[in-house]
């Protein structure tokens, strides 16, 4: 039987505020345990929360970024359950009327088409602390250590509709979301530090069936790679189970990326009853139109708009525009290079080609590229004005990468790579080449047009070689054809 997977995502996005959502303690990552947990974060008796304005602003930015309705009156609710990383015995979150209503995001598929993923809503809430399982000298039954530094870090939880059908789509969505929140500057995007964590809901059904199968939720995936693997593994597990005659149990699962093993989560076996009710320590957060307008006026260009601009204003093709606009750092780099180089298409080829390849080989992100956008732009400019050929340009790029010069001009000058465009000089080289290869000239002249087209390559190659790559290839081509007549 043909099976279809149905995937929905819940993504916890840590907001890049300086302080917690309800306290003035720092949210900086990596501090000593409990040194950034104040009385509010520890849930000590008599302590009260006050809402961080920036968390509200950032959630609004996200909503505007995905073209969603912003809810004007926001109520924080208490979600009640006991867990050691939840100091108050309840999580302060939103239930009814989340700050960000329904929206959508379009993702590009490999076949060049776009696929729309609907976003059900995104709500604001506080993060929990962490449990550490080490050996402690205290206690007779085995203990866990609780670090509440993370407790109270503001999150938006983004909930999608079950609109994805395979792991690739889910990952494409996740990457796009990453790009949006980093473009907006509302999340640092540091996946390895837990700044974005994905819960994936997966079910399978026979191809063509309307009714959804029973779903499972795999929690807390914090890399695109693990997410893809965990989804594929879960789809496979469900299909095999059903084909073997078992029923899928609705459950919460954990996936360990290091061991590639998934299992049911014991602590979540028990059904819970969260007894949500509006938090009486907080009042409704009312979002005035003036706040909305101010944030709207400060919105950066979103990837979608940037892509459109790349196509319409810079003349890029759809695919190139998508690839270059998808990530903020790439898009910024490309635009700077295109501006400095004066040729967007050429810059696009270099960013997606030589630069991407070399970054990949060296396992580097674009932000840490040894060749700056301005330097690459300088290189593009010299290709465009025929100072160097595309082939020489690769040498120049290599030199820039290895820090043998700070600009293309400097490298060209130092290494004497300037292209020869003097007709007389090129003609002299051509004459020499033709003189040294009389047999090939003979054959050429005897051939028909179709064959000649192929044979001219030999003379071009010889001429370029003789010029040590510096002769302008266009001129070489033109002059050769004339002289071989």
């Amino acid at each position, binding site marked *: 039987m043909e099976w279809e997977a149905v995937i929905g995502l819940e993504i916890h996005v840590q907001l890049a505020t300086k302080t917690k959502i309800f306290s003035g303690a720092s949210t900086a990552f990596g501090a000593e345990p409990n040194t950034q947990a104040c009385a509010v974060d520890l849930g000590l008796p008599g302590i009260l929360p006050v809402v961080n304005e920036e968390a509200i602003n950032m959630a609004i930015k996200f909503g505007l970024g995905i073209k969603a309705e912003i809810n004007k009156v926001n109520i924080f609710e208490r979600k009640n359950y006991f867990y050691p990383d939840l*100091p108050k*015995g309840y999580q302060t979150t939103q239930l009814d009327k989340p700050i960000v209503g329904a929206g959508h995001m379009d993702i590009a598929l490999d076949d060049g088409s776009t696929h729309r993923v609907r976003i059900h809503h995104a709500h604001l809430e506080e993060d929990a602390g962490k449990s550490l399982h080490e050996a402690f000298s205290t206690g007779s039954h085995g203990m866990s250590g609780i670090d509440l530094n993370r407790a109270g870090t503001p999150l938006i939880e983004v909930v999608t509709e079950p609109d994805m059908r395979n792991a690739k789509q889910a990952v494409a969505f996740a990457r796009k979301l990453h790009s949006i929140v980093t473009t907006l500057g509302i999340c640092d995007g540091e996946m390895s530090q837990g700044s974005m964590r994905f819960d994936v809901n997966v079910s399978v059904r026979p191809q063509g069936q309307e009714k959804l199968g029973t779903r499972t939720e795999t929690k807390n995936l914090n890399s695109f790679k693990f997410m893809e693997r965990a989804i594929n593994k879960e789809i496979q597990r469900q299909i095999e189970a059903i084909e073997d005659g078992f029923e899928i149990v609705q459950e919460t699962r954990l996936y360990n990326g290091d061991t590639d093993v998934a299992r049911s989560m014991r602590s979540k076996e028990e059904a819970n009853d969260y*007894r949500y009710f509006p938090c*009486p320590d907080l009042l409704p957060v009312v979002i005035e139109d003036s706040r909305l307008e101010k944030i709207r006026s400060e919105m950066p260009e979103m990837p979608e708009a940037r892509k459109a601009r790349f196509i319409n204003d810079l003349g890029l093709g759809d695919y190139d525009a998508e690839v270059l606009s998808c990530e903020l750092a790439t898009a910024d780099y490309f635009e700077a290079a295109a501006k400095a180089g004066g040729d967007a298409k050429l810059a696009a080829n270099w960013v997606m080609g030589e630069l991407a390849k070399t970054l990949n080989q060296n396992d580097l992100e674009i932000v840490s590229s040894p060749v700056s956008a301005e330097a690459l732009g300088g290189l593009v400019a010299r290709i465009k004005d025929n100072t160097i050929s595309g082939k020489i340009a690769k040498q120049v790029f290599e030199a820039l990468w290895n820090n043998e010069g700070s600009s293309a001009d400097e490298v060209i000058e130092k290494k004497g790579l300037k292209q020869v465009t003097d007709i007389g000089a090129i003609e002299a080289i051509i004459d020499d080449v033709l003189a040294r290869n009389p047999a090939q000239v003979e054959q050429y002249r005897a051939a028909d047009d179709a064959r000649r087209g192929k044979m001219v390559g030999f003379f071009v190659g010889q001429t370029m070689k003789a010029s040590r790559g510096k002769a302008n290839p266009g001129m070489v081509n033109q002059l050769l054809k004339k002289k071989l007549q």
Partner: protein
Amino acid sequence: MNEKPLVEKSLIEKSLAELSRSLKAGEVSSVELTQTYLDRINTLGSDLNAFITVCPDIALEQAKAADEAIAAGNTTPLTGIPLAHKDLFCTQGIKTSCGSRMLDNFIAPYESTVTANFKAAGAVNLGKLNMDEFAMGGANENSYYGPVKNPWNHDMIPGGSSGGSAAAVAARLAAGTTGTDTGGSIRQPASMCGITGIKPTYGRVSRWGMVAFASSLDQAGPMARTAEDAAMMLNVMAGFDPKDSTCMDRAVPDYTATLNEPLKGLRIGLPKEYFAEGLDNKVEQVVRDAIKEYEKLGATVKEISLPRTHHSVAAYYVIAPAEASANLSRFDGARFGHRCEDPKDLEDMYKRSRAEGFGREVKNRILVGAYALSAGYYDAYYAKAQKLRRMIRDDFMSAFNEVDVIMGPTAPTPAFPIGDKTDDPVAMYLGDIFTISVNLAGLPAMSVPAGMVDGLPVGLQIIAPHFEEARLLNAGHQYQQVTDWHLAVPTGIDAGMKG
């Protein structure tokens, strides 16, 4: 009792306002005054079980500092005045138990805004007062530290939950005390102990550092001998606190400035529902007599209706336990407070620590609250109660279109014997019927001593519109200029004073 020096007799008889003048005039030092109260707390205080913690060293040190400030002319009206606080205001370095085994070992590393304000005003902290566990109760029988006795009759309850605070003022163990009022917990014990207590408007006094019972209802207020004393204390307690989201950013008037305004033309509303079910005949007579005094002062009286009075009890006993059930979840044995011996796993730690740490009434209210919020019941209980709450508030708002203040009994009966209603929570809850709706509506209200029934004091309740505490204090003060119920002293206490 030993013979006491003459100056001490007058000291104990003096109100907070009079003591303030004596301290400034150099007639007495804060150290002397503080020592006098500490001595009384040692003897009388332990009979009444009014204090959970007495802190003589801190008190005397603060008194000494106050005397130096007075000598330097650097004073506030409260400099050197010995006060004591309900044991749910967190006090840095001094145990804050909330009357619970759960917090028997808890020493807060921070100071509540209310106690910090008193500290800053130069007042002295004598110690922490007994109370119903987590402020849940109307008889002060639900304390891990045992019941508080009514100074007027040691077999009787002092009222609750601020029973220790009321008893301490009545027995002259402090010049004034703080209490909190979630459903009547300042006013009802004030009525039963014959003192003056005011529950301010919700949002008038910061709740920061005050251990929460029901966050949307809790409000701290002064408990004192006179309306003037209460005004002086409220001047220090009231005000904006950026650390409490529900605390209102609104100017605080000088509550002592308007105490002497004449009451001529004051329009008093008498809700017919407050003179009906469950009201003791003799209590009713006391209240009606008090209102006659107001008429003599030039006030006019009009019958009004607060039709949802009866149902306010039901709404309250959904909202308060629901909020409490979540507020008390942080007491889980993990980071502070009681942890059971040798828990075998996490769930065992939670369940035993909480079962051992909390008393019966607290557990019952947590269960009621969790039940009312549980799957499928939310609309029928919590949402319904919050809708009723709006109707109750709106009834008051309409009433205040026609009258300036509302008056009636604080409690349906005088103090009753300790243990009388322990096993009948419904009867106990109905004792709050005249106070509860005020909390639901967030209004300020006050209880002033208005008479005696069978040797026990009875209070008159006065209710005002939001943020009109000054009107209450003015009405209370004017009444106290023409009556002397607030000067009455319990007999045993009286004997102690006269030596």
